[in-house]
């Protein structure tokens, strides 16, 4: 298959996959407490369906989607709801947010799922409903509700190609790789469901060429499946080739136009972990209550991949991996490139969590002292979006945000390639994140002030109009009073009333 090349990227980024990839996926024990932040997906927070004191079963829906873009949440094990209150959530700024806490009872009783023997008998709407009700969101990290992608976004457009993203380009993370090694059959079955739903002609399952044994596993699964529409492809290992836009470019040569979604060019791209979750939901009837995550880094004694209940506090997983080592320095959710540091290990695993990196001193990308930009342009040659990071930096540093926006700041995918290559160690992505949010705030404020101005202006015109109308009316009145016919009329009226009076007097007399 012909492959294309996106601009830049980091072909020789240290992968660090060996730490975690060689051991099979282990099922983690159920913790005493499961914590579910109500917003663990893009869109509106889910609304709680339970009250403190309620007992719940595994697979029971405890919070429901609110509005179009949202997703329900299901209990990961049986137990009692102990609180619905603010709890620390995985967020770069260390925020707390409303969360449901369940004290598990150790029985792990579940709502008996109803498996489906032949998904082809179900209508597409029914399949979309199953996926929506199972609370499935993008498990690659973005956590966008999958049902929206398959329904609202795809059914109004003609989808040619389905891309299954198994290109796990972030260093250290190997959960998708282990999943494909061990459960390729399930993933391929999931691909069939998606092909059926989207009516796409072909499905391409892409993985990086640094995991040849995984490719063999995929090939075997594809052969067993006898579906000629599905192809496994190995792509060059270049960070960030697993980024949706970069993967689409690599596989099809097409670029997703700025501000558009892949469906606009006939492509739907889904992470392989999400495909697995879809297969589990449709075939086994199981909602999304667990996922595979990589626990790795020099700071943890036994790094490997775990199948964990969503909501498990990180602490529990570290204990399961035989605890911290003396090198443990920083707790990172996600990989070293795009992940973020966590405040503590009481924070739970959410649907989007693909990796817990317990980094040692040298693994955490330490912030060396930033020197001035010397405009060497290495960042521009590494940028997979073909931006000019040095110019964006210049403008965002000097608060000329409109100029940064004009240079397509919002096309930055925050992959961190520029940070890695910068010889002056400038934390460029941090500057870009700041500039983006400052621009969003500016726009919001402008929007509000526009509304206020419009309101003020329309009030002013209304008042002016009223005033003019009033003036016009009084002018007319005055004019009417002054004009002669009016005077005569008044005189006539007076005469009339006098006559009436007289005639009355006559009558009385």
């Amino acid at each position, binding site marked *: 298959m012909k492959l294309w090349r*996106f*601009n830049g990227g980091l072909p020789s980024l240290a992968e660090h996959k060996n730490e975690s990839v060689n051991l099979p996926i282990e099922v983690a024990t159920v913790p005493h407490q499961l914590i579910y932040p109500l917003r663990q997906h893009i869109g509106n927070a889910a609304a709680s369906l339970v009250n403190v004191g309620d007992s719940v079963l595994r697979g029971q829906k405890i919070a429901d989607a609110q509005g179009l873009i949202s997703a329900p949440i299901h209990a990961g094990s049986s137990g009692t709801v102990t609180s619905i209150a603010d709890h620390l959530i995985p967020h770069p700024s260390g925020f707390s947010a409303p969360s449901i806490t369940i004290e598990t009872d150790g029985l792990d009783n579940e709502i008996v799922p109803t498996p489906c023997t032949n998904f082809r008998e179900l209508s597409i709407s029914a399949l979309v409903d199953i996926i929506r009700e199972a609370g499935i969101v993008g498990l690659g990290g973005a956590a966008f509700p999958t049902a929206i992608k398959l329904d609202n976004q795809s059914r109004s457009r003609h989808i040619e190609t389905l891309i299954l993203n198994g290109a796990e380009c972030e260093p250290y993370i190997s959960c998708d790789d282990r999943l494909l090694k061990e459960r390729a059959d399930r993933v391929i079955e999931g691909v069939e469901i998606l092909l059926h739903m989207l009516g796409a002609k072909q499905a391409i399952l892409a993985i990086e060429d640094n995991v040849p044994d995984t490719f063999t596993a995929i090939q075997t699964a594809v052969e067993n499946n006898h579906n000629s529409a599905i192809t496994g492809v190995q792509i060059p290992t270049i960070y960030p080739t697993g980024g949706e*836009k970069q993967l689409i*470019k690599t596989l099809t040569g097409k*670029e*997703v*136009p*700025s*501000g*558009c979604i892949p469906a606009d060019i006939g492509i739907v791209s889904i992470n392989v972990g999400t495909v697995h979750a879809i297969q589990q939901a449709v075939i086994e009837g199981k909602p999304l209550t667990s996922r595979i995550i990589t626990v790795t880094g020099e700071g943890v004694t036994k790094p490997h991949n775990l199948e964990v209940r969503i909501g498990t506090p990180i602490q529990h997983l570290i204990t399961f991996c035989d605890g911290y080592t003396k090198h443990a320095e920083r707790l990172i959710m996600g990989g070293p490139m795009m992940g973020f540091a966590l405040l503590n290990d009481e924070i739970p695993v959410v649907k989007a969590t693909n990796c817990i990196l317990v980094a040692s001193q040298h693994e955490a990308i330490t912030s060396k*002292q930033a*020197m*001035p*930009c*010397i*405009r*060497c*342009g290495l960042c*521009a*040659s590494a940028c*997979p*979006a*073909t*931006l*000019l990071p*040095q*110019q964006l930096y210049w403008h965002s540093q000097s608060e000329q945000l409109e100029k940064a926006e004009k*240079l*397509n700041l919002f*096309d930055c995918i925050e992959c961190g390639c520029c940070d890695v290559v910068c*010889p*002056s160690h400038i934390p460029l992505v941090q500057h870009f994140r700041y500039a983006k949010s400052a621009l969003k705030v500016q726009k919001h404020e402008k929007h509000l002030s526009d509304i206020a101005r419009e309101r003020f202006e329309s009030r002013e015109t209304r008042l002016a109009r009223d005033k003019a109308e009033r003036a016009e009316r009084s002018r007319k009145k005055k004019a009417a009073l002054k004009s002669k016919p009016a005077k005569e009329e008044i005189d006539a009226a007076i005469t009339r009333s006098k006559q009436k009076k007289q005639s009355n007097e006559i009558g009385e007399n």
Partner: protein
Amino acid sequence: MMLWVLLALTPGIITMIWQFGFGVLFNILICVSTAVVAEALMLYIRGRPIVPFIGDLSAVVTGLLLALALPTLAPWWIPFVGAIIAIVLAKHLYGGLGYNPFNPAMVAFAVLMVSFPKSMTVWTLPQSLIPSGSSFADLLPYIFGSSPASGVVDAITAATPLDELKTQLGLNKTVSEIQSSAIFSGISGTGWQSVSLAYLLGGILLLFKKVISWHIPAGVLSGLFAISLVFYIFEPGSTPSPLFHLFSGGAMLGAFFIATDPVTAATTLKGRFIYGVLIGLLTYIIRTWGGYPEGIAFAVILINMTVPLIDYYTPPRVYGHK
């Protein structure tokens, strides 16, 4: 990165010493030490951390590039004043590392050239043309004395081939007549050719180590080559060959080491090539019709001014944009 630049300059420096004697060593010594001290002082005055900014070697490179551009028999205060101009005037008064719009070494060179034209043209005769060779002792009167003994002057000083060519063309001689003189042996003159080749070698090393991209040097050299070729074809009698232009003066040093200074060059790839071509063209124009024999320094400074414009009009196509 800067270490690689220093390393890549060593073949050039060694060839300079071999061809033109030890004068260049004095220049390097004075320029580099003055530049580093001036840098440290400026950082101190401006309240910036001294160690990381000295440690990046940018002041060393600036000093070294200036030293290599200066004439080998310049009196000691020429490199001294030059280094101060480069670091204080052209670099720190504009905001220090990363903020200077003009190449500091070339600003210093231009200021010296305009202010002290006489001291800026005393080059040594190539060693091979001095019957007895030149020793340290021969150089000292030029560098530290005010007026060297008159007998020595003729023995070891000389105009550069570019300078000589300009003077002689002014006297209505043809290029072939001029180039029959001893200092014009080879393509571009005794000594100069070897030095240019050494810089070219260093430049190729930088390209291989990806310290610089090919766009700027290719731009400079092709710009200079193209325009000199045009005039060489139409007026072969009064214009030297394109190869003479490429291998004489500071063309190679300029193309690989000076124009490639990232701070003052264009940053987009297309822009870098255009920037290089413009420097090449302007260098030829100054060499041919300007008042000075060598145009690299002025060309670099003038084209530095166009950098924001070049960058503005040559952005790459962003992913997902038409």
